[in-house]
């Protein structure tokens, strides 16, 4: 991805295959908007792309400080890409703190765009610079483009009569305009978006559009330093179809609605605001027309309990949360396991333990999801591997929850939640429906009568004459559903609940090899949002002739029936995870394989190079 080999031509656009840009500034500078607008436009222009928003937990940290720096990285290309890119080719630093925090990631020789207007003595001091890095030789290893963006922005919006604060705010749009010139992006969709966003204040909309255009014009007309010019990234060859950009949380919301439709059920979402899951609540609250009732509960416990109450009533109860919320919900999830009611729990994982890193990504709830309840308390655990896969796995969660009368935990994470990728929009008519039948026949009824195939109990709901019954968290008699403290009965019930969940393995796809041969020297096994990084790393290693394959697990519990056999066809198994070793423990204990972990617990996704280096090292030393 060394895409910035300089040419002498400044008049013509240089064709490049891919580029990684990082926009960085104060959390109040609008970097997330800038980045997402650039991404939307890029998607519309037919490139493949992947994004990585990275923002602090504070809504507005003190201006100019390093801990208030917000970043948005976008990787786009003329070919298939799967990660937001290891290191930026271009860094846009809106102030000294943004430079300080992000410079170490910029590729050697990369393009550095700085807003000199923000390099004041005060800001330099706040960022911890003794002297101005723009004025010494410390940036000599980069191609530096120094522009007083603040001044240019103020000039561009002068005629709109804005206050100074509002005028300065438009500098993100000026910067976006410049970058759109540099990479040949069209501005129209952003202009349209601004007009919508500021519909009540057209003057502000037009001022921002003027700033956007001014940044673009600056690129076209200003004399650029040697080695800095415009580029073209041709369209990627995507599979035929209708596309949009989608984030994991949007895809999850739509997947849940689609699952509800395929099941023929109304949905009830009980949720309590928590980062990074809240946008699922927001999205679904806007979609009540699509068969869902959304309820913002008083706390995480009430949220899951309301979902359970809704499932008891015959709707499908859903709750969405992140790690600390899942911790609070565990007792209630146990109730749903014991009463064998369907329930979908979405856990958008974030850095832990405790409050941890609320806005950063991690995969450290896996063992908690699989085992974290009192008693022998099995349930189904799924994990989505890309933003688009959140849709598919949310549909799966609904299917398995209703078919097996069990809670299902769907694990996503902060990276998937916020990161966007082009997504081929599915046609929901192409999905096989899985209609739910509530029991109505009183003949021979008791609440824990089971389907002999799936072991799921029958779902009889209040309002049905002749099926009046009581359920609860106390142990139930296998043959009547009444309370039972009988020792043998408890043993039998624990076994039957376990067998029911284990039986889900017969109803899910076999584990496939995502890339590479069916056997070889090394299998890299991943789960969740590491998909892109592992896939790209394995591709690199295979190009270098290494006998490496990649398998990505989406069904975490129960796991696919053939997984043990797949693992044993390889000499080595490597498990990269954004935690201190969780899937690797499951694989070692369930399959007695000598799997090794590669752990990154930095609140940031893996870089491709980190995994590729481990693959090479492991194979070199074996």
């Amino acid at each position, binding site marked *: 991805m060394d895409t910035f080999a300089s040419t002498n031509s400044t008049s013509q656009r240089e064709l490049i295959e891919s580029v990684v840009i990082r926009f960085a500034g104060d959390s109040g500078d609008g970097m997330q908007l800038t980045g997402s607008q650039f991404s939307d436009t890029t*998607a519309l222009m037919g490139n493949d792309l992947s994004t990585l928003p990275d923002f602090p937990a504070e809504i507005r940290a003190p201006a100019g400080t390093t801990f208030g720096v917000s970043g948005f990285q976008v990787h786009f290309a003329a070919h298939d890409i799967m990660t937001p890119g290891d290191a930026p080719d271009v860094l846009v630093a809106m102030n000294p703190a943004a430079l300080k925090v992000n410079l170490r990631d910029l590729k050697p020789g990369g393009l550095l765009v700085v807003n000199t207007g923000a390099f004041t003595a005060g800001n330099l001091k706040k960022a911890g610079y003794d002297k101005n890095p723009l004025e010494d030789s410390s940036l000599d290893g980069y191609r530096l483009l120094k522009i007083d963006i603040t001044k240019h922005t103020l000039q561009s919006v002068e005629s709109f009569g804005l206050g100074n604060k509002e005028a300065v705010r438009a500098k993100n749009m000026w910067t976006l305009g410049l970058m759109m010139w540099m990479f040949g992006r069209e501005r129209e969709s952003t202009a349209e978006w601004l007009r919508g966003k500021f519909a009540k204040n057209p003057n502000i909309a037009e001022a921002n559009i003027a700033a956007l255009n001014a940044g673009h014009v600056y690129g076209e007309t200003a004399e650029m330093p040697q080695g800095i010019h415009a580029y073209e990234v041709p369209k990627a060859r995507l*599979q*035929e179809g209708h596309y949009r950009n989608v984030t994991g949380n949007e895809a999850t919301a739509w997947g849940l609605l689609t699952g509800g439709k395929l099941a023929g059920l109304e949905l009830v979402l009980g949720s309590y605001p928590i980062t990074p899951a809240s946008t699922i609540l927001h999205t679904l609250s806007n979609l009540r027309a699509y068969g869902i*009732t959304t309820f913002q509960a008083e706390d995480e416990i009430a949220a899951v309990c309301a*979902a359970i*109450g809704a499932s008891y009533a015959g709707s499908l109860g859903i709750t969405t949360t992140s790690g600390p919320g899942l911790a609070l919900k565990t007792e209630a999830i146990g109730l749903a396991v014991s009463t064998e009611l369907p329930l979908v729990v979405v856990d958008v994982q974030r850095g832990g333990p405790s409050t941890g890193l609320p806005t950063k990504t991690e995969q450290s709830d896996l063992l908690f999801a699989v085992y974290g309840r009192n008693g022998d308390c099995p349930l189904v655990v799924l994990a989505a591997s890309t933003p688009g896969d959140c849709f598919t796995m949310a549909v799966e969660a609904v299917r398995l929850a209703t078919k097996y009368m069990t809670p299902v935990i769907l694990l996503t994470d902060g990276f998937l939640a916020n990161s966007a990728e082009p997504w081929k929009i599915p046609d929901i008519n192409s999905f096989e429906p899985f209609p739910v039948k509530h029991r109505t026949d009183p003949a021979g009824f008791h609440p824990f009568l089971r389907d002999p195939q799936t072991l799921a109990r029958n779902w009889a709901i209040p309002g049905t004459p002749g099926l009046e019954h009581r359920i*609860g968290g106390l142990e139930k008699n296998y043959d009547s559903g009444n309370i039972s403290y009988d020792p043998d009965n408890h043993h039998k019930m624990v076994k039957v609940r376990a067998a029911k969940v284990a039986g889900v393995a017969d109803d899910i796809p076999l584990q496939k090899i995502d890339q590479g041969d069916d056997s070889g020297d090394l299998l890299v096994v991943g789960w969740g949002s590491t998909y892109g990084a592992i896939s790209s790393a394995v591709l690199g290693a295979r190009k270098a002739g290494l006998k490496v394959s990649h398998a990505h697990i989406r069904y975490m519990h129960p796991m696919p029936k053939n997984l043990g056999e797949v693992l044993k066809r390889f000499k080595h198994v490597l498990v990269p995870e954004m935690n201190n070793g969780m899937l690797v423990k499951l694989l070692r204990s369930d399959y007695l394989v000598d799997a090794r972990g590669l752990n990154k617990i930095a609140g940031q996704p893996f870089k491709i190079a980190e995994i590729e280096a481990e693959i090479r090292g492991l194979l070199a030393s074996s």
Partner: protein
Amino acid sequence: MTPLDPPNPPLTRKDFTSDQEVRWCPGCGDYAILAAVQRMLPELGVRRENTVFISGIGCSSRFPYYMNTYGFHTIHGRAPAIATGLKLANPQLDVWLITGDGDGLSIGGNHLIHVLRRNLNLQIILFNNRIYGLTKGQYSPTSLLGKRSPSSPMGSVDNPIAPAAFALGCGARFVARGIDTDAKNLIATLKRAHEFQGTGFVEVFQNCPVFNDGAFDHFTAKDVAAQQQLHLEHGKPMRFGDNKGLRLRPGSLDIEVVTVGEDGVTEADLLVHDETNRSQAFLLANLDPPTFPVAVGVLFRSDENLVPFEVGMHEQNKQARARGLGDLNALMRKGHTWKVDADPSADPAG
């Protein structure tokens, strides 16, 4: 919601009695409350299949197992949250929430706050025995100061809560009280709670003969009941005992006990019960013997007609679906989308 037709033929107490053996201690006040509810339901003309009892954890929360209706014995303190989901999913259901002083006011206090302020259309019966029974006798949030128990051997220094005052403070719109052994008035009060469109909160003083026997004898025992109980009736002066009554102490917002016929006090001086007066209800909820009688019956009934939460939510659903259920395929194709053609020659890449 349109009420369902009453069952035909009418049901009897037996129809509401499940086949499960009741497992409370002999002499427990819960038996009397169970009997009162089983007697009352046929009189309400409700259908068994439409009736749901939801409980938390504790002695009283075993209640649903003994009712031949739908029932859900949930987890400690969370019954209001489960009931909220149930009503959101099916507002037609007639839901009774069974809780206790520990379940509802301690571990589940948060949920009780919110179900009351949201005014879901359901009934809450809070069995107050001022003790933790099922865990063997620890003091509860309604135990009186100085209560000696296994976890407070030197006497409790934990200031108790008054459930009715708590409910009023949460914005409850129907707050009433009954006594386990006074079936006639308890049934009448529960019927009023059922009739109310919103959350009907009823605190029942319930004797625990094993761990807190006689906790309410000072106002429930036969020989003192008339002197120590004020039976509230809307529009009637507040009289009790032998010519006793309540009035506002002139020039204050405090209640005092007076005797009609003494010191020139006539019945016209007494407070007249106004169920719709929340401030008065607060005063009544905090009256304690021996200075004051205990107020029983309907302390407060709001006449503001606040739309129950689940009804409001369903109205919004209806609004959102005015033009039918949304089309998911169309939803996902809204906004910025683009098409990629099958023909690779149409693609300028590379």
